[in-house]
């Protein structure tokens, strides 16, 4: 397969960090910033930037809630994010299986 024949991948999801975030959220669960940070082993700054990128692309939705007067940032996947990840998984599976 030449490079031109290769499927075009969604650039946003081809970063390990962003792929990790969206994979964690794919089940529809809401996850808090620190929970995601600890689960994925990321730094605050990196996670914050990647969340903003995904939110800008409307792949995830960010909700801020207060618990004991402390703000908490929860993320959840959107339908668009679900579709993008499903499409990527299909492309990757095609690449693995059909050669």
């Amino acid at each position, binding site marked *: 397969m030449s490079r031109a024949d290769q499927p075009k991948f969604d*650039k946003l999801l081809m970063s390990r960090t962003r792929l990790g975030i969206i994979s*964690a959220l794919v089940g529809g*669960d809401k*996850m808090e910033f620190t929970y995601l940070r600890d689960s994925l082993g990321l730094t605050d700054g990196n996670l914050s930037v990647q969340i903003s990128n995904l939110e800008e692309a409307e792949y995830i939705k960010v909700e801020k809630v207060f*618990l004991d007067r402390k703000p908490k940032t929860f993320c959840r996947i959107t339908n668009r994010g679900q579709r993008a990840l499903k499409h990527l*998984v299909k492309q990757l*599976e095609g690449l*693995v299986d059909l050669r």
Partner: protein
Amino acid sequence: MKEEHLPQAAGSKHTDAEGQSAAAENLKFMRAVVQRTDRQIKPEAPVIIVWGLICTILYSAVHFLMKADLQKWILPLYLTLIAFGLGHTFYALRQVARRQKSAGYIPKVPRQVTWIWLIVAAHILAWSLLGMLLNDYSAGDPAFLAAMGLSIALAATGILYSREWLYGGAGIFAGMFLTYFAKDYGYLILGLATGAGCIVPAIICQRNFNRQERENE
């Protein structure tokens, strides 16, 4: 949306095998993330146990009150027990929401299950109260309606969460069927069936959850 080809190792000549291995690695990574971030969902058994007890007490009491010709006590008893059950449920749900928020993980399944239970409870309450207050039971016997609602809600919980609840729903269904053959003991049978249908799966699920938690440690 910008798109790109599968990332290649810097300077390496692109080959099918490299692309295949990168794709497989990405799929493996996604699976690993899902496994790492996934948490066991607590069954919140006490809420269902309380409703099982309420049903058992209420239906058994209705059976004996009817036998003793004391029907006027049924509505006050019903309202008292239902108010207690609703109060306990809303308090417990508040605590659950708080606990989930502080843990930073709000799973989807309990949210779906809660909505199903709220919708079913609204139906049970509306038709039972209307029947008792207007003395018009065209919607059906409140005890039978409640048992049917519980059976449906438990079955839905079983489909979405854990199959033990499905068996509880099936048990209540069987109990409802049995009332046709033992009309004199209908309320007593419904009480025992709904009680067991709620309490037994709740205990099993809680025990399974606790065992899994211990194993995870």
